[in-house]
């Protein structure tokens, strides 16, 4: 009998979701749009790259290299210097994005048929733009290399250096954060809205005087959104992979399991918010503030945690997304397994348990 009641309730929730075509469409397309939007925003940001050229011994050869950058139109030379220390102030004042440092022996190295050395320094204080700018500069250098005597020569040896954020791997860092964001949005926000809607319309009362137990109401609310959230995570991954060629090196099953865990935490948060909110609108705002802001700003998704001030760094520890992002990055980009991620996973398990207990209790307390 109990099973039947829960089943009937879950069916009802599914019907609500399917009936509300608009919201469903938004929910299903959101990850797609977000990935495309964020992905492209990264590219559009770097139309006009300010480059400083450090050429200690100019020659016709190095002049051609300089011209290769000018010819792309994407680069805009802001300084021609003889030594790196002349460029330093430009970086510090934010007047240059990239420095191309040509080895003093560049021309001779090429002439001798040795790899000619070039150092590329990129301002990566905004890590995403940084890596994109670097990629463009590398592309120009690659083109230049190919023009050198039909490519038979050893060409040039490029060394790259990121300033301010040297450990940066790539824009790929961003996708795991996006998965976290999408999962949180769907789970926490939608649960909070759908539960507070029942409260507002008075239908919750009807459910409460029925033999359904509070935990059944919560489970019934939550189950459909777990499915929806995971579908969204899959879309995000697919788009990231197909359109932006983000690598996926680790176990899909593990990522799925971790996503499920993270979704549960978000759902519990949603229930908690709904239990405290007096109206649908309050629940929506509450969910946005409690989930979106920490998720984007304090999770390491956009701003590296290592570069935050110490008090803020401490605060990030209570943001579930922070832990999930480490896990997702580990699985996707490094291909590591649970043996390296068990600490983060345990933290997430702990948070989820805590949130679930709090949610059920709070829900109980508010209705009694």
């Amino acid at each position: 009998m109990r099973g039947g009641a829960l089943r009937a309730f879950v069916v009802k929730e599914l019907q609500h979701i399917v009936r509300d075509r608009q919201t469903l469409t938004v929910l299903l397309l959101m990850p797609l749009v977000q990935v495309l939007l964020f992905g492209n925003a990264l590219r559009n940001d770097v139309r006009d790259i300010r480059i400083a050229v450090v050429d200690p011994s100019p020659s016709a050869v190095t002049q051609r290299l300089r011209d290769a950058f000018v010819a792309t139109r994407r680069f805009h030379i802001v300084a021609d210097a003889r030594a790196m220390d002349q460029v330093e102030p430009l970086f510090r004042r934010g007047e240059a994005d990239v420095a191309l440092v040509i080895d003093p022996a560049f021309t001779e190295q090429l002439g001798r048929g040795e790899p000619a050395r070039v150092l590329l320094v990129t301002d990566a204080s905004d890590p995403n733009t940084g890596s994109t700018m670097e990629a463009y500069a590398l592309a120009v250098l690659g083109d230049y290399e190919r023009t050198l005597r039909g490519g038979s020569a050893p060409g040039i040896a490029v060394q790259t250096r990121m300033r301010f954020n040297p450990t940066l791997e790539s824009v790929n860092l961003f996708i795991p954060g996006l998965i976290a964001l999408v999962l949180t949005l769907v789970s926490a926000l939608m649960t909070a809205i759908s539960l507070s809607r029942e409260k507002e319309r008075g239908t919750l009362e009807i459910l409460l005087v029925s033999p359904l137990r509070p935990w059944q109401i919560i489970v019934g609310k939550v189950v459909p959104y777990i499915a929806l959230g995971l579908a969204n995570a899959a879309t995000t991954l697919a788009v990231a992979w197909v359109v932006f060629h983000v690598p996926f090196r680790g176990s899909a099953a593990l990522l799925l399991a971790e996503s499920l865990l993270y979704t549960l935490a978000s759902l519990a948060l949603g229930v908690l918010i709904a239990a405290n909110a007096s109206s649908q609108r309050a629940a929506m705002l509450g969910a946005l503030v409690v989930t979106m802001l920490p998720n984007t700003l304090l999770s390491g998704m956009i701003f590296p945690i290592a570069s935050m001030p110490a008090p803020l760094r401490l605060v990030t520890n209570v943001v579930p997304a922070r832990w999930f992002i480490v896990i997702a990055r580990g699985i996707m980009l490094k291909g590591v397994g649970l043996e390296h991620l068990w600490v983060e996973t345990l933290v997430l398990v702990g948070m989820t348990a805590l949130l679930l207990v709090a949610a059920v209790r709070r829900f109980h307390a508010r209705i009694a």
Partner: protein
Amino acid sequence: MSEPAIVAEGLTRRFGDFVAVDALTFEVARGEVFGFLGANGAGKTTAIRMLTGLLAPSAGHATVAGHDVGRDPEGVRRRIGYMSQRFSLYEDLTVRENVELYGGIYGLSDAEIRDRGGALLESLGLTPWARTLVGAIPLGRKQKLAFSVALIHRPAIVFLDEPTGGVDPITRRQFWEMIYETAARGTTVFVTTHYMDEAEYCDRISIMVDGRMAALGTPAELKRAHGVASVDDVFVRLARAG
């Protein structure tokens, strides 16, 4: 006579220093239509929440359909039906889906839901509307459907919280016919209303003033006791005095 449907003895609920419901003592017989009246804020809602097992009493106790509301609220909830002034059905589900939902929640088997649901829609003339979203059918029909749905598990007692709010007079009359039919089949009807003409239709009425039961009896008894012509006058006298 068999055991009463509702027995309340000294039923009390305090919120801090405020006594919302103060020592209610009354009985409701099986198959009775019991009108539960009172001005807004008189403690009706709190009393109903206790009787439906949503709120634990601070003192005293009550038995509903043989189950103690404080000790066995689950047992109470399985034996009662409930329909509120605010709309009880889901507007974005179809008529049939709503019926299936409530049948399922109250533990009916699929076969029972099919049989009783079919009969229910038939008797309300809603069979052609089965696949229509509830939001799209007229209010009067919705309220009748909500009432029938609240009875789908054949509860011993049905609580109706201002069931006829905003409904036209003809539908109201039809609604009360449904209430009488239900009572005639042995189901106790516990109904709140602000319409005093409806109060006259009840077997017995109680009037709550400031958390206490200021009057209890048949409409005729109360009118006689206060020497007035209508329940409306009784109500106004008591509410003013309070």
